[in-house]
């Protein structure tokens, strides 16, 4: 599969067509960017709340 990736320049999932955009008042954001930002918030929350191994009382 990796070999196919090296010969298929556009990636397994083609992202070349203009992506969906969400509109909310003056705000306009691509689904891709929104996904990145939401993922950052989720990862940040996980980093804060997930227990860290080896911590002793």
């Amino acid at each position, binding site marked *: 599969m990796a070999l196919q*990736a*090296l*010969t*298929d*320049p556009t*990636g397994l999932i083609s992202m070349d067509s203009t992506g969906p955009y969400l509109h909310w008042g003056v705000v306009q954001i691509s689904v891709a960017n929104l996904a*990145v930002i939401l*993922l*950052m918030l989720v*990862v*940040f929350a*996980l*980093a*804060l709340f*997930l227990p*860290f191994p*080896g*911590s*002793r009382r």
Partner: protein
Amino acid sequence: MSAPTTGTERMWTARLRGRAVQAFPPEQLLPDKQPAYVSSWIYVFGVATLAALAMVLTSGIVLALLGPQWYHVSNVGRFVNSLHLWSVELFFFTMVIHLWGKFFMAAWRGKRALTWVTGAIAFLGSIATAFTGYLIQSNFDSQWISTQAKDGLNSVGVGAWFNVLDYGQMLLFHVILFPLILGVLVIWHVLLVRRRGVVPPFAADDTVVPQQPEEVAR
């Protein structure tokens, strides 16, 4: 080690070495322990950012070796270009989460202001470096970004020297000038963290230094 010759201690070399070793004793430069309060996943985002930066530099070096047009005409080149793009996205992803964590910890406390300052400037410098990267893609994106960005830069006079329409200049800025400056900032930032240690948690009464040095910060 042989005994120093008379007057060695006043030599610039000896003085610099002395100060370097004093500021960064080996056990502090590469420590095998951390204060007990360093036990949260938030702490991995600094090193994750460094790892992402290493990926950016590696993929960038391959792109530099094969020239700026390579990725347009080669499938392998396009793959390396993809590595460069996604490592940059990861770099900003981890760096911003690292920034959020450090903000909520007020990590500039205890004479660590310079650590924050170098980090913040490195953040802004990274944005500038990424910007020049977008300019040298030599595709439609570069055409649009350069002709738009010129207005922002020209409006305050910066565009007269930092000419985003000058492909050659932007290529050199992106491949050598900005990475060098960023490299210095990042190394400085990491050395400062080693020098001062990881910032301690907020304590209830932090305006009185305890008498006994062994007393644990609460």
